[in-house]
């Protein structure tokens, strides 16, 4: 009885506060500060919600909301199916079989990631358009009536899937390569056939990895603006732009964003829930490599085509179309300035990737060191930016940075210094925005590699008298290196492609390739947009290939 009394006291308010005082350390404070810093734009948007919806909210609900919901659901559903078919089948075949050009195709399959999806959209529209290559081909064959109209909802789903499936491919393949061998052998020993092994064993096991990739795809799908606008499909994101800019009602846009965010949260919760249900994936990396089978006869060609098809559709066709356009417009568009802009884009992307990854590392490790469990949960809040459209984040960043700037100007003004805007309209604001937007992209690969490092390893270091920071540099970092570099590369690629945020926040006289491409495309000079687009693709391709090397080594 006495013991029970003692322990009741252990969780009385007084002792809790006492413990809180004991356990709050600098890491807790830092984590909170950083989470707050990263969530600030989102908080500012959230505050707008309390202002109530704008006048036109009723109008949106009456005429448009159903359309937004319906189209977004349609895209989520159709893209999920397509992306899973393309991503999982190709991942399985390249990790299980050996066939013609397998090694090359393994990294070619990641390349669609290097092309912004709106550019894929333009390329396909041009390809199937009246007077486009496909149309001309059909005319040659006397099949004029066969003109394929791609500019509709189904076409949009196709374009988004074909440019985003590598997210699923990459995570599924990593699973198949790292974890699968023992299980495959066990299954073989039990005399289970190839197909059954795949559907009954590998697919359920790989599910958390696949779903993690799928959630990334769906966030991108829901955030797409360029392609949806061009294809005339109303989605939440086009709706946000419409109510913000055409109806001049930021509050209404914020309400739509909030709805979209709920939608995305539902997806994230779904992922969490289903990963929790399946715990067996946390097993350590399996060191023995998968033994690849050599398919024969018709099977060989079937597998080859299944793997080649996504490369053809997601990379070769759009790039071919872009190259064709580039060739016919090169004389009017290309100049040395492109080299400069490419370098600028490259520098901005690499810098923001490093900064974003730095934030992700800090968040992951600081929250680990801050012994308060609540802090660990809070740190996840910093990742929400990925769920919010770039334009909305840009506005969310302008509000606080401008306030800060005005304050600084006042202070400096007292000293007789006319400083002008210090943060806004400079690279600092842009980097800040990228960090907020892409933290999740950096967080996930780092977090998942960090999970593979057994806690006892950093713990031993601490017991041996080495503090947190030094332990991180000497022990943790070397062990999670691949995750960190994957994160840098993924953010790099995303920044290279990013548009609405960059448009609003970029400083004077700094152009990025994406901005350049958009400028042309938005003025219906899709052909002229091909040259900056190709530059984006080639700049992003180099790290994509590098990323592939990392993943294989892992």
């Amino acid at each position, binding site marked *: 009885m006495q013991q029970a009394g003692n322990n009741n006291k*252990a969780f009385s308010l007084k002792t809790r506060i006492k413990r809180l005082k004991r356990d709050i350390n600098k890491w807790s404070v830092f984590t909170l500060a950083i989470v707050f810093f990263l969530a600030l734009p989102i908080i500012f948007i959230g505050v707008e919600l309390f202002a109530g919806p704008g006048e036109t909210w009723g109008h949106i609900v009456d005429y448009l909301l159903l359309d937004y919901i319906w189209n977004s659901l349609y895209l989520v559903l159709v893209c999920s199916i397509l992306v899973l078919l393309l991503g999982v089948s190709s991942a399985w075949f390249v990790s299980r079989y050996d066939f013609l050009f397998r090694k090359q195709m393994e990294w070619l399959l990641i390349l669609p990631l290097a092309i912004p999806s709106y550019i894929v959209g333009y390329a396909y529209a041009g390809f199937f358009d009246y007077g486009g290559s496909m149309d001309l081909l059909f005319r040659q064959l006397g099949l004029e009536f066969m003109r394929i109209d791609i500019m509709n909802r189904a076409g949009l789903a196709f374009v988004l899937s074909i440019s985003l499936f590598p997210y699923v491919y990459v995570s599924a393949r990593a699973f198949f390569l790292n974890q699968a061998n023992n299980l495959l052998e066990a299954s073989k020993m039990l005399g289970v056939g190839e197909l059954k092994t795949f559907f009954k064993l590998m697919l359920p096991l790989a599910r958390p990895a696949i779903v993690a990739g799928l959630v990334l795809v769906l966030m991108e799908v829901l955030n797409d603006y360029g392609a949806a606008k061009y294809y005339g499909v109303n989605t939440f994101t086009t709706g946000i732009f419409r109510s913000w800019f055409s109806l001049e009602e930021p509050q209404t846009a914020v309400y739509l964003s909030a709805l979209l965010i709920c939608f995305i949260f539902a997806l994230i919760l779904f992922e969490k829930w289903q990963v929790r249900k399946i715990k067996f994936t946390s097993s350590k990396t399996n060191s023995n490599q998968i033994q690849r089978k050599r398919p024969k006869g018709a099977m060989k060609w079937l597998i080859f085509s299944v793997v080649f098809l996504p490369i053809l559709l997601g990379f070769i066709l759009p790039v071919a179309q872009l190259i064709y356009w580039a060739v016919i417009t090169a004389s009017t568009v290309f100049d040395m300035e492109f080299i400069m802009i490419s370098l600028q884009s490259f520098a901005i992307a690499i810098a923001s990737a490093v900064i974003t990854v730095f934030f992700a590392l800090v968040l992951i490790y600081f929250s680990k060191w801050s012994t308060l469990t609540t802090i660990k949960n809070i740190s996840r809040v910093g990742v929400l930016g990925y769920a919010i459209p770039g334009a909305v984040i840009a506005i969310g960043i302008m509000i606080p940075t401008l306030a800060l700037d005005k304050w600084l100007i006042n202070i400096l003004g007292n000293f007789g210094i006319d400083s002008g805007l210090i943060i806004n309209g400079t690279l600092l604001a842009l980097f800040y925005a990228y960090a907020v937007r892409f933290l999740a992209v950096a967080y996930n690969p780092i977090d998942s590699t960090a999970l593979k490092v057994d806690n*006892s*390893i950093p*713990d*031993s270091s*601490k*017991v*041996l008298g080495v*503090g947190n920071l030094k332990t991180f540099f000497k022990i943790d970092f070397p062990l999670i290196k691949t995750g960190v570099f994957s994160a840098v590369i993924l953010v790099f690629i995303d920044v290279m492609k990013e548009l609405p945020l960059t448009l609003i926040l970029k400083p004077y006289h700094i152009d990025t390739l994406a901005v350049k491409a958009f400028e042309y495309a938005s003025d219906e000079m899709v052909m002229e947009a091909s040259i900056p687009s190709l530059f984006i693709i080639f700049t992003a391709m180099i790290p994509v290939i590098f990323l592939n090397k990392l993943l294989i080594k892992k």
Partner: protein
Amino acid sequence: MLTINALSKSFDKGKSYALENVTFNLKAGQVCAIVGESGSGKTTLVRLIAGLERPDNGSITMNEKVIASLDKFVQPEKRKIGLVFQEYALFPHLTILENVLYGISKVKNKKEKAQEMLDLVGLSGMEKRYPHQLSGGQQQRVALARALAPEPSLLILDEPFSNLDTMLRTQLRNEVFDIIKKTEVTVLFVTHDTQDALSVADEILILQKGKVIQKDVAENLYVKPNTLYVASLFGNTVHINKNLQNAFRCPLKEDCCHAIRNEKIIVSQSSTEADCEYITAAKVIKKIPLGNATQLVLKLESGEQLTVMTQDQNIADTIYVGFNSKDILEFDQEL
């Protein structure tokens, strides 16, 4: 040297306790084994002492200094405790030598010290190798060398042998403790294996469901166990429940729990031969030869079943079993 006072830890805000009101102390130079099943709170206790977890209540004092309490917490890196994990936790990207050097980077002649430690654990010549190139036993010895190098005042071994097979285990256990004896360090040795504990520990602490059941020297645990659970940890024990009591017609104190060790049950061919206070006849249902002895499954007159051991080779179908009151173990409560 180490004093644990009313230590409690819960991972679900007080709904259940991984450790509840644990109190004990450790003398310098002692080897104390902590024995308990998995889930008994052994690992939590170790992590609390090492500073890898923070207590919800109670305190830990080491060398007269409070290192953890409700309002004080000394970081693990400041505690000077050596810890060897079950999974060794060697740094996979560092060589053996670098692993051992890791904790003594500020020591003056660290190279010599590290070399000395490697010699001690018999791994000189392997300095340049990486952990994955070593066998499990070798890795364990590296982990030991690494933990001992900074000359900790307390060394904690958390289930250090459970990843090894039985043969290697006994051998390595003896080797490891030979090494440890040379260093005169105080040791807390966590294990779920009573044999491990009995063979090396000065004192044994029994942990069950987060509570300390008994802490004593080995003999006492055998002779005067606090609970039936402790008794059964150190040899097969028969619980004398109401039915057995009636079968043997032995009067026992109410509200207490009684047991008799298997080896104290006397088996004889006739009722007169047996020299014991309580006796009853039994039918042999099954004989299981175990080499040096035979296990008998008996059915008593009252219908109760009982398993006993005997050295006797010629067992009739009906025999007598009994025991003496001096051998009866008595516990306060049934636990």
